[in-house]
């Protein structure tokens, strides 16, 4: 199957800053891609470009469509939750379901109602009467009932408590995701999505600085915990990052020889957040 998204030379300049700087990447179907980057790195701009919400230069094909010219068709097969709480405040649950059911050809009303039945949402309840978590539940119920090929989530759980956050990703995995669907998610709560991602993309200053699947990340990056006596030896191997824990040093290596590292100390796969911190060092400096 061909790629869901193919981007090459994606560039977007706002008045003063370069939001996307010649970014190129490809996303295959059936993946859950985490697009991770510090604030202002260009994540949202990249998603907006994919959704045809902003103009840009470069080549971009999403599900075979050009999002700049064929946005209406594209939106029949793409869903997105852009940030929390973008549902209009006046709308009632019943109205939202009615509206989407009647304008979206791939919407399954029964499915949506089944999702809603598992929440406390009432048909006559307005969005303005809901908590942030409930708004996201409604939005997710609407989106999961749409048989879309690509789902884009931009900080979908920002400001939600941990119960809602866990439930959000659990629902997504159990009731929505399959090999025909692709999900792109941006978030700052990296630890919470880490275990569901199949691919990882780091973006920094509008450039893609890491693009790999999780297995490759596990192969490529190794963390090793080294006692003080061997720290100098580890440093000589040019680690990406170094930090101290309980008198020991933890070094993060990119593409080092595993056997060599194992000789120095206990090795393990780094967490995405540690990898992120190491990669983004000096971003705000």
């Amino acid at each position: 199957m061909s790629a869901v998204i193919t981007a090459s030379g994606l560039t977007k300049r706002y008045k003063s800053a370069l939001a996307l700087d010649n970014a190129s990447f490809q996303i295959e179907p059936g993946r859950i891609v985490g697009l991770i980057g510090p604030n202002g790195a260009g994540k949202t701009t990249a998603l907006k470009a994919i959704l045809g919400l902003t103009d840009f230069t470069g080549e971009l094909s999403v599900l075979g469509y050009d999002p700049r010219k064929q946005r209406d068709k594209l939106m029949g097969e793409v869903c997105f939750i852009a940030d929390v709480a973008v549902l209009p405040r006046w709308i009632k649950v019943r109205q939202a379901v009615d509206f989407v059911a009647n304008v979206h050809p791939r919407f399954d009303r029964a499915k949506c109602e089944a999702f809603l039945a598992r929440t406390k949402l009432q048909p006559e309840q307005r969005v303005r009467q809901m908590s942030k978590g409930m708004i996201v539940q409604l939005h997710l119920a609407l989106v999961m009932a749409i048989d879309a090929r690509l789902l884009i989530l931009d900080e979908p759980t920002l400001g939600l408590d941990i119960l809602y956050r866990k439930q959000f990703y659990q629902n997504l995995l159990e009731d929505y995701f399959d090999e025909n669907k692709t999900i792109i998610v941006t978030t700052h709560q990296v630890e919470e999505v880490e275990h569901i991602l199949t691919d990882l993309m780091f973006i920094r200053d509008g450039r893609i600085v890491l693009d790999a699947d999780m297995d490759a990340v596990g192969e490529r990056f190794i963390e090793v915990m080294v006692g003080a006596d061997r720290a100098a030896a580890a440093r000589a191997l040019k680690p990406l990052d170094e930090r101290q824990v309980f008198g020991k040093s933890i070094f993060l290596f990119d593409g080092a020889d595993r056997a060599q590292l194992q000789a120095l100390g206990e090795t393990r796969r780094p967490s995405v957040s540690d990898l992120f911190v190491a990669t983004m060092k000096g971003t705000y400096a």
Partner: protein
Amino acid sequence: MKTPVLNDMYWLIKRELWEHRGGFVWTPIITGGVFLLLNLMGIITGEVMGRNAGFNVSFGGAGNNMRLLSSNLDKQSMDAVGAGLDMVMYSPTMIIGLVMGFVVFFYCLGTLYDDRRDRSLLFWKSLPISDTATVLSKVVTATIVAPLIVVVVGTLTGIVMLLMFALALSFHGVGVWHLLTLSHPLQVIGNLIGSIPLYLLWALPSVGWLMLCSAWARSKPFLWAVALPVAVGIVMGWFNLLGTLTLQNSWYWRDVVVRILLGVFPGGWFSEVPHVGGSNPAELLSSVGLTHSYAALGSVNLWVGVAAAVAMLAGAIWFRRWRDDS
């Protein structure tokens, strides 16, 4: 099999009515209700004052006239009474139409701006609906659905009002029920509904301009929509005053400012209709009837406005498509 385009349009308009239920449904109903209440108060005042004065007459001279007329009416008087009753039926629609002018004005000004400000735009944009369909549904809501509601509520109010007067008069032994048959409710309704296409064409430049500002402004669309054309007019007037440039600017106020700001108020098209008025109520009414008012279609002014409106709406659609919320 329903066509997708019409189906989408139906739901988009329904959505507008959901969101603006207060403006489009409750405003005309409340206005009509207040209108009826004021008339009822007027009738009661007349009754009470008449009784206190010891007269066994109904309020005002109309009742007396009617009593006289009801016994022996010639053709012309019957026409006059009928026209008077028709005017009674028109009057609530005019008042409600005026109030709805404000509603439509602010609706157009906010409709492509408010959802950008509260970011719900991102939800609407996640659905497979073209920006053209979205903007057109709003145009239809402002220029067809809103006036239709006005006509329905206005006519119902007019009928209730007629019945109220008839009832009050019948307490005084005036047999007005048959007078009511002199009125032409179907003609009134037909005239009002028939005027909606004229309203659409005449209001279009205002709707187009307001929506263009609504889609374009990053903030304060009202200021742009109103202050910009007014400021231009004032600058032109200032040049006139200085005498450095003689710009004839009365046409600017009449053919530009009024058209792009006040077109949402009904009836403006009569400025393009010759010979409005008459020496008696029947003549006056027939001069504003459909057979006359459609003479406005012959005016270049109207069609230039429509052409400008199409361009402004195209601009509004373009801005709707590309205006970033950030």
